[in-house]
């Protein structure tokens, strides 16, 4: 039987993951369908009652992929409940009667990169360590460049002169990036697109509103999950800044452990688990930089973020920076989010005028 491998969806990261899996395994790679309402409905139907929402999205992705013929699934993991997703999802899909292999790339007691090699070796016996390291490094570099460009886009997309310029160019880049042949090729491509992105005409005032996006990784990165929050902010002509991306989670965070607590100042004495401490640190840095406001997103009941919230609230009082807390679940109403966002916009606008 032909093996078809699939994985959960998250923003544009399916591009580098497809690239990696194609190179290191000899299976056919099926990238997941874009998330729709059906994905969420399927996921919610078979998930435990009060598990956090990324679990439901991922499960929905898996079911849709299995329906389309995939038979090997991979899952990642993280510091909170995320590390335990894989086993429960495997059990649920098993009970639903699907026939598949399930691999978790992350083991909590081991380095991510080492464990991923072990798992990929199990999938493809011919994989040598050198090949793995080469393609892993290349994939990480792709992700790194994508994130760098994303940061530029996020800061400027609200001010583009012709609507859709940034989006079109990004899609073009994603199409091309899959066919790269090596580091040199990749670097050339990045430089080319960097210039192209810089060349897009924008109409950005110097004193535009600045908002920082913080929060749990999935809700802040997957646009369907946060109801296209970034798009809405762009329409309001706000400059956005977000630190959570895969580069940060996989690489920067490793070298950042001691600095993070220092950046938190008096607000955190210990690490509060998963990405909670990082959020507090970023919130404080952005507050000191004089941002107009922060938007904190999380799935309902997210353990580390709920722990970070009282700290963020105190920080918000001390530095007088407004923070808007969003909590996403499978039943969140889109209208409610829009209204709150508009009210938030009006509020920071009024504050700005008052200070001037």
């Amino acid at each position, binding site marked *: 039987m032909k093996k078809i491998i699939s994985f959960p969806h998250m923003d544009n990261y399916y591009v580098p993951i497809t690239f990696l899996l194609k190179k290191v395994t000899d299976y056919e790679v099926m990238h997941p369908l874009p998330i729709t309402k059906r994905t969420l409905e399927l996921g919610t139907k078979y998930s*435990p*009652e*009060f*598990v*956090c929402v990324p679990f439901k999205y991922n499960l929905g992705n898996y079911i849709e992929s299995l329906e389309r013929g995939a038979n090997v699934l991979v899952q990642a993991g993280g*510091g*909170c*409940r995320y*590390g*335990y*997703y*894989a*086993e*429960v999802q495997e*059990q*649920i899909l098993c*009970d639903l009667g699907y026939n598949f292999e399930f691999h*978790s790339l992350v*083991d*909590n*007691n081991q380095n991510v990169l080492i464990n991923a090699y072990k798992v990929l070796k199990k999938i493809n016996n011919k994989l040598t360590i050198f090949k793995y390291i080469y393609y892993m490094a290349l994939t990480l570099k792709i992700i790194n460049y994508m994130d760098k460009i994303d940061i530029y886009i996020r800061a400027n997309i609200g001010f583009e002169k012709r609507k859709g310029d940034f989006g079109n160019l990004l899609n073009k880049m994603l199409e091309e990036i899959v066919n790269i042949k090596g580091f040199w090729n990749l670097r050339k491509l990045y430089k080319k697109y960097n210039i192209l992105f810089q060349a897009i005409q924008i109409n950005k005032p110097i004193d535009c509103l600045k908002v920082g996006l913080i929060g749990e990784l999935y809700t802040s990165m997957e646009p369907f999950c946060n109801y296209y929050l970034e798009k809405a902010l762009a329409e309001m002509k706000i400059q956005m800044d977000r630190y959570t991306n895969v580069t940060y989670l996989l690489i920067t965070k490793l070298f950042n452990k001691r600095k993070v607590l220092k950046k938190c100042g008096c*607000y*955190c*004495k*210990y*690490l*509060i*688990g*998963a990405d*909670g401490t990082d959020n507090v640190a970023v919130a404080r840095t952005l507050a000191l930089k004089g941002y107009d406001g922060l938007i904190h997103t999380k799935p*309902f*009941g997210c*353990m*580390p973020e*709920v*722990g*970070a*919230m*009282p*700290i963020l*609230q*105190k920080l918000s009082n001390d530095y007088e920076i407004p923070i808007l807390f969003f*909590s996403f679940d499978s039943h969140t109403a889109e209208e409610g989010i829009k209204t709150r966002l508009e009210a938030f916009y009006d509020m920071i606008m009024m504050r700005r005028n008052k200070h001037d």
Partner: protein
Amino acid sequence: MEKIKIGIPRGLLYYKYGDLWENFFHELGFEVVTSPETNKSILSKGQSLAIDESCLSMKIYLGHVAYLIDKVDYILVPRICSLYKKEKMCTNFQALYDIVNNIFDIKIINYNVDVEKGATEKKAFMKMGKNLEKKRKQIKNAYYRATRIAKRKKEHRLIKQERLLKGSTNLKILLVSHSYNMYDHLIGKVISKLLNELEVEVIYADIFDRKKIHKKYQEISKKVYWTYSKELLGSIIHYYDFIDGFILLSVFPCGPDSLTNEMCIRKMKNKPIINIIIDELTGEAGLQTRIESFVDIIKQRKEKEVKINNEENN
């Protein structure tokens, strides 16, 4: 000179380490004030202080801290990240110190256990004593004496439970929950009282010998890494043959429980299970109906089994 008063909130880890802490401070000559059993006013106070989405146990804990705040000089707020190597605690315990520190303006006694990074329990106690300006030898003695008392109490409970398991002919139901829910007056005590009224023996899943159960969790779930969840799953397997049914009791929205309970229900299909989730609005009448019907089901099942056995013997 008046004695320094140290407050211990009766919530979360108190139910695991309460004896140890209280005895330790008594030995060192401090006055210990423990907050009373949870009641409605403590809960509502905690609710107003906590984030809406934090779990019920956390809300109760904050209520207890608020109760103690103007009655004592210091409050003990533990921060436990990992108790054993390659295991973790729920992030609530990791963040507990910082949460309390940011909500209240009080003097907190530092108690940090993170075995993975080398901060053991003994070191935590030594540091705690040092911060309270006691001598090294004194602290050490107090710590050993307190551990001995706590250990003896634990063993006593274990023996009592095992005697009950073998001796009693009543129905036995295993109550599976974290200690801080199981013995809380608004959560677990309500249920164990209801069960006792129905003449059912309650077996507590958090009373066990860790050496005997610490690898048994693998039968239900191989990759679970929260210490308390691991222990509870191991305990379920350990007691499985002696009990007639079990109750999975968790609070809304407990993170680890949301997944481990699901695994448990999916894997353990031979004995009756009921999954009870409690939040601050749960009424007692609803609980009573559910538990009564659950006990009825178990009774009928047992009668049927006895009948079949008798027929086979004849």
